[in-house]
């Protein structure tokens, strides 16, 4: 898979950890559209993405490059997801394991997005260390058993890189599948 550029859509509910993940893994300065929050959302966190985050990741010793497009999380910014979702190769869906009130809507969003895009997904279960718990949550959101699930602590950059590795493995696997289909 050398010499290729892949587009990764990083999405998920408000305050799940999307921007943190892109900040952690991007090797170029992240283009972000963070602004201060207001109203009830200020109780959750101080800054929020209003348009997009953009970061890049290049595989060492290879020309393979990933472009990471992060969406805002709130429903009122859904049009940004629609703008950014074209030609996506993998969806990285970030969800906060402890923010249980976001899970129902997150499941609806995840299923709708994957039905629409028909690309593989990596489920990054933030604030979670347990593989089984992460897998259970991903399944409850409607993720397929074949989809990669990564328990992570996105406050920690190393944890973000674990997600990137899963994204790369998923890209590899989907290319194998494509090859088989062609053959």
């Amino acid at each position: 898979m050398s010499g290729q550029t892949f587009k990764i859509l990083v999405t998920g509910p408000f305050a799940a950890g999307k921007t943190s993940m892109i900040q952690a893994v991007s090797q170029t300065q992240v283009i972000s559209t963070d602004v201060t929050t207001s109203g009830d959302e200020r109780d959750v966190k101080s800054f929020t993405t209003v348009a997009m985050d953009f970061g890049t990741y290049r595989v060492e010793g290879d020309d393979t490059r990933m472009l990471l497009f992060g969406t805002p999380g709130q429903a009122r910014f859904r049009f940004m997801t629609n703008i950014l979702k074209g030609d996506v190769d993998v969806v990285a869906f970030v969800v906060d394991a402890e923010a249980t009130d976001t899970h129902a809507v997150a499941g609806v969003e995840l299923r709708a997005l994957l039905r629409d895009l028909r690309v593989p997904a990596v489920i990054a279960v933030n604030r979670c260390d347990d593989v089984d718990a992460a897998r259970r949550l991903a399944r409850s959101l409607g993720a397929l058993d074949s989809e990669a699930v990564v328990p992570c602590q996105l406050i920690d950059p190393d944890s973000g890189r674990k997600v990137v590795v899963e994204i790369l493995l998923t890209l590899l696997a989907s290319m194998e599948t494509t090859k088989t289909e062609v053959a």
Partner: protein
Amino acid sequence: MQKVKTISDGSLALQIADVPPRPIMSVVPPPPPSGDAPFATPGGAPLAAPAPSTAATPPAQSYTSPPAPLAPQPVVDPAHDSSSDPSGGAAGLLDDLVARFADAHGAILASVDGFSIARSTSMADEASHPAMLAAAVGLAHQLVTLGGGDQLRQLVVDHDRGLLLVWPVGDQRVLAVLADRTVDQRELRSFVQAGAAVLVGSDT
């Protein structure tokens, strides 16, 4: 020099005077009416922001009538009664703007994170509008660096039916005005700048 138009409606001037001076929005003096040229440059207009002292200060001279006949006042919307107005008089100011400028049709004041603060009664209550404004301004702030600049002053959406003029107001809000291409942008900005104290609000 910035020419501050006075307005015959004394209540607006009073509102401005009553509000303590706050940092004002900075705007570029607009280009002269540019006909149909989609990418007309500000024809020789200086790019520097006007001197801040002219903005939030009420004009010292006596009130004069605006040159254009005032459009009929909009029907009073109880939600826009300034005494109970959660936007601190901003909604009334936006209605005044639409009434004052015949070729401005609506105005929306939004928080930088995409919530509605106020809108003119001519605008529908549509949650995606303030969110789109916040997203566009958020991205425009980044595009400023592409252009080598430091500060976003104005965002213009020039479309087949007119203009959408968007300004950051303070650092927590954005203002959008829907207008015909014929709108006097200099007058419009003077009006907005005069009301900046109300538009910026106090929820920082």
